[in-house]
């Protein structure tokens, strides 16, 4: 196999990006584990530190606390030679019925059909409005 065979096309990178967010939306941790490389690093601006793929996936169920549904909408994806940047709206419905939205940007790096790094930028000052108050 030539070296070029491992170079991902822009189309493949976009598809991988969509697959990642669809899996996150649908709770498909098995898919996430498959499309994130074993050495994938996830960095959040909120914590300012890097976490491993497995740490991230183990924390996935807890991230849903208080939430009934989350959808990743308005995806604007731009691909470059070794990754992508996606700007999107995260819309959530809480168990209280409250609906919230966050605007997030993620820069992803890819290699051999897998995501090798995720850098996530969000604004924690919006979290309270996102979750809403307690049920009346």
């Amino acid at each position, binding site marked *: 196999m030539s070296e070029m065979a491992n170079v991902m096309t822009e189309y493949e990178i976009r598809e991988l990006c969509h697959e990642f967010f669809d899996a996150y939306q649908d709770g498909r941790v098995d898919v996430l584990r498959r499309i994130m490389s074993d050495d994938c690093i996830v960095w959040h601006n909120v914590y300012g530190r890097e976490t491993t793929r497995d740490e991230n996936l183990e924390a996935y169920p807890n991230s849903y606390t208080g939430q009934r549904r989350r959808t990743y909408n308005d995806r604007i994806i731009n691909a*470059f030679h070794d990754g992508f940047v996606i700007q999107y709206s995260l819309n959530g419905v809480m168990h209280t019925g409250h609906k919230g939205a966050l605007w997030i940007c993620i820069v992803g790096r890819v290699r051999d059909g897998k995501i090798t790094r995720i850098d996530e930028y*969000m604004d924690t000052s919006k979290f309270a409005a996102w979750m809403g108050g307690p049920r009346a």
Partner: protein
Amino acid sequence: MRKDWQTLELCDRFFDSIERKDYDTLEACYAPEAVIWHSHDSLYQPRADNLAMLKRGMETQPKTRFKERRVRVFEGGFVQQHTIYVTHESGFVGQMDVCFVGYVRDGMISRAYEYFDTGQIDKFLPPREPER
């Protein structure tokens, strides 16, 4: 035809001009219709307002640096991840991790999106004097 180097040069020129307090170069980086969106209010700031804000920063802040710049070019624009360090008059050095997505037309930034965490504003702005 896509010319990555031109977009990379624009990106560098834009951020370097802020560091060097070179307002004329900064202004020339923005297309006439440029708007700048910020994640803290989800609003598009008009070109003139954004330039006024940046000019005020040049006049009042002793030093601004964009470090750990990681730039990637895509069709129609670029994304830069960096940490901004601002030295305030008091000597306090604030910092913030930022992701800047710029869309480019005719060699100028026509639209930009800036993402950062205002929940960490205490790391960016100097401590306020207690009210008397």
